[in-house]
């Protein structure tokens, strides 16, 4: 569903991603781990078509920069980005209109309810706390019912209720056949539901492991065995 082959991305002289390959199939949840500066966000932004890169990325078999791929991709950025002068309800309406969605109202209502935003429907983006903005950002990403969802540090800033709800939604998406990719530093948060884990360091995938290959080892054990305890920053 999400296929990245030999991705290389440079910022000037800095090699942020070096020959990265990732494959996430429908109904799978892949976790992206790595120390700060490992190149996780660059990889995610490249997949979402926000950066120029070398290599190939396809979503649902389509080039990631094609309209077809964009239609089936949902993205939750690391920092929630909302429009200060648009209400919560209008954010969802904007997405529905931009993606030309039909019969979206009920699903929008469901998302607002699940993230406890129904009473904030008429609140402007600038009036929301960072956590609320993150919730709106998640709702916007999920509204088009994407077939692939990419979340960059989605739990940062969320309250416990929203964290639980997001985890439930991610499991539901998996069962609906959606390919899910989550980048996080909170290893425990995905311990139960992951299928594949990619560990990045220095712009490269240094380890790929699937749950079926694991023999009683926790994700945390694997992570520290690969990156070491004195990992520091890579950049």
């Amino acid at each position, binding site marked *: 569903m999400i296929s990245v082959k030999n991705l290389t991305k440079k910022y000037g002289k800095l090699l942020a991603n070096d020959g990265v390959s990732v494959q996430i199939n429908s109904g799978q949840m892949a976790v992206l781990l790595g120390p700060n500066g490992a190149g996780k966000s660059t990889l995610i932004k490249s997949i979402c078509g926000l950066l120029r890169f070398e290599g190939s990325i396809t979503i649902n078999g389509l080039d990631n920069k094609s309209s077809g791929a964009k239609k089936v991709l949902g993205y939750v950025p690391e920092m929630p980005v909302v429009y*200060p002068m648009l209400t919560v309800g209008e954010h969802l309406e904007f997405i529905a209109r931009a993606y030309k969605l039909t019969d979206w109202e009920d699903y929008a209502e469901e998302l607002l309810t699940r993230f406890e935003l129904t009473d904030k429907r008429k609140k402007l983006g600038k009036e929301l706390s960072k956590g609320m903005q993150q919730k709106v950002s998640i709702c916007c990403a999920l509204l088009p019912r994407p077939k692939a969802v990419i979340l960059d540090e989605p739990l940062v800033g969320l309250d416990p209720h929203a964290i639980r709800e997001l985890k439930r939604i991610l499991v539901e998406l998996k069962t609906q056949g959606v390919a899910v990719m989550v980048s996080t530093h909170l290893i425990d948060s995905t311990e139960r539901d992951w299928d594949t884990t990619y560990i990045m360091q220095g712009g490269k995938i240094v380890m790929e492991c699937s749950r079926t290959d694991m023999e009683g080892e926790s994700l945390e054990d694997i992570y520290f065995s690969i990156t070491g305890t004195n990992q520091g920053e890579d950049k």
Partner: protein
Amino acid sequence: MRSLFYLTRATWKNRLAGIFKSPGKLIMYLVIIAGIVGLIVMTLSGGGTPAEPDEITDLVWFRGIMFAFLLLGFLPAIFRGLKQGTMLFQMSDVNLLFVSPIRPQSILLYAVIRTIGAALLGSIFIFFQGGLARTFGFAFGGLLVVFAGYVLVTIFIQIMTMSIYMFANGNEPRKRIIKIIALALFAPLLVVAGRAFLYTGGDIMATLEIIVYSPVMAWTPILGWVSNGTIAFLGGDILGGVLFYGAILAAGALLLIYAYVGGGEYYEDAMAVTETTYEKIRAVEEGQINAVFVTDKKTKVARTGLGGTGAKAMFYRHLREASRQNRTGLWGGFSLMLVAGAAGFAFLNRDGSIATILFIFMGLNIFRIEMSRGMKDLYSHYIFLIPESPLRKMIWSNMEVVFKITVETALAFILAGIIMGTSPLLILLAILAHVLFFLVLLGCQYLFLRWVGSHVNMLMQMTIYIAIIAIVLAPGAAAALFAGFWIGNSAGLLIGLIIFALWEFIAAIGCFALSKGVLHNCDMLIMDTRLTK
């Protein structure tokens, strides 16, 4: 205090080391320095040939110009002080120095000295005013005096803003006192202006003449003192200059003593504005470019809902945002200022040409486009992810600003044209040339994005952007100027404008065609909050 010396020394040492470690940065700084030195030399050489006595304008007018220019920074600073204070400190000062055992007074002094450094750098533009200096009959030494006066007032404004904030923060009666004092400072001058206007029967030039010659202007605190001190120095009255500049120094010292007496009491006030500003900068760096424009102003949500589908939804989103941002919708205070400015200029230059207004408008809009909603969209992911063709997205995300500029230009040029007695055809051509110029600017922005990207520092971005505009417009401008001068008179202007507008049209189409697919072939923009990376 020794730790603050160490901090200053280490900061500068590392900054210099950073420049020498990066050859690109070093070359860039050398080019900038060479440019500045070159301009200073040009100013000096220009000043070497003194203007003829009959060409020299009375220095009193220079006092008026300096007063008016500084007023633009002085009045907003008072209101900023009432509302949020000033940025004397950085977040690292708050986190590391405020909690340290260093005396608060020393920290304040350190921040003020650092501000002097910034003010010196920010005032370099004074040395480029060779033309102005020649007009008023003074040379490089005179520019140095003007530079000193400008730096003095800039530093005073910083200290004043912080002092006002410390005095009036959260205290309504004290805020009223500051407002009354501010009004009292300028009230005598306003009375002089009002009387002069009535006395001259509304003749603006005569009114201005009475104002600049009035001793009331010279004695208006700070702005009057600095402008009068400057012309005293320029006119050879050293004692007068020292007295006026000294008065500002004394006033600044008094405000500093006020802060000193308060000891660490300024911490809370300084921290509030430093934290707010820091949060905004961080939000911008992390992609929330709109954070800069978010104000505490209450926004009423009356009507909700959007229109359009696909890329068109962006246009309707912009309209909704604009209606909430300004009561007047798309056209805010700046639009009004432009229209009024064009009318005012036309009124004062009734024998002039509408082409002058066109050039002024073109200059003003070169950087204005950067902050349009369409351009700001490039800093967030939504526009990249909308499943539509890049061209459609480009068109609809800029429709709002093009519509806004077209109406604004039409209003300003028609009004100015009527005042100047310009022919309707010439007015229409000027409007067309300006709107097409705006399209060229948009096209150049996308070209820049397509070929250069956003991962160069801001200074380099500006240089390349301006170079692209110059290269793109040069052939049309040259042809228009040649034809205009060759034919001469109003017919020449007409033909010149037709040629220029035609070229702009071709250039805009060309730029858009060359940047086709840009939204699928560029990096999402990142706001560089520093001048250099």
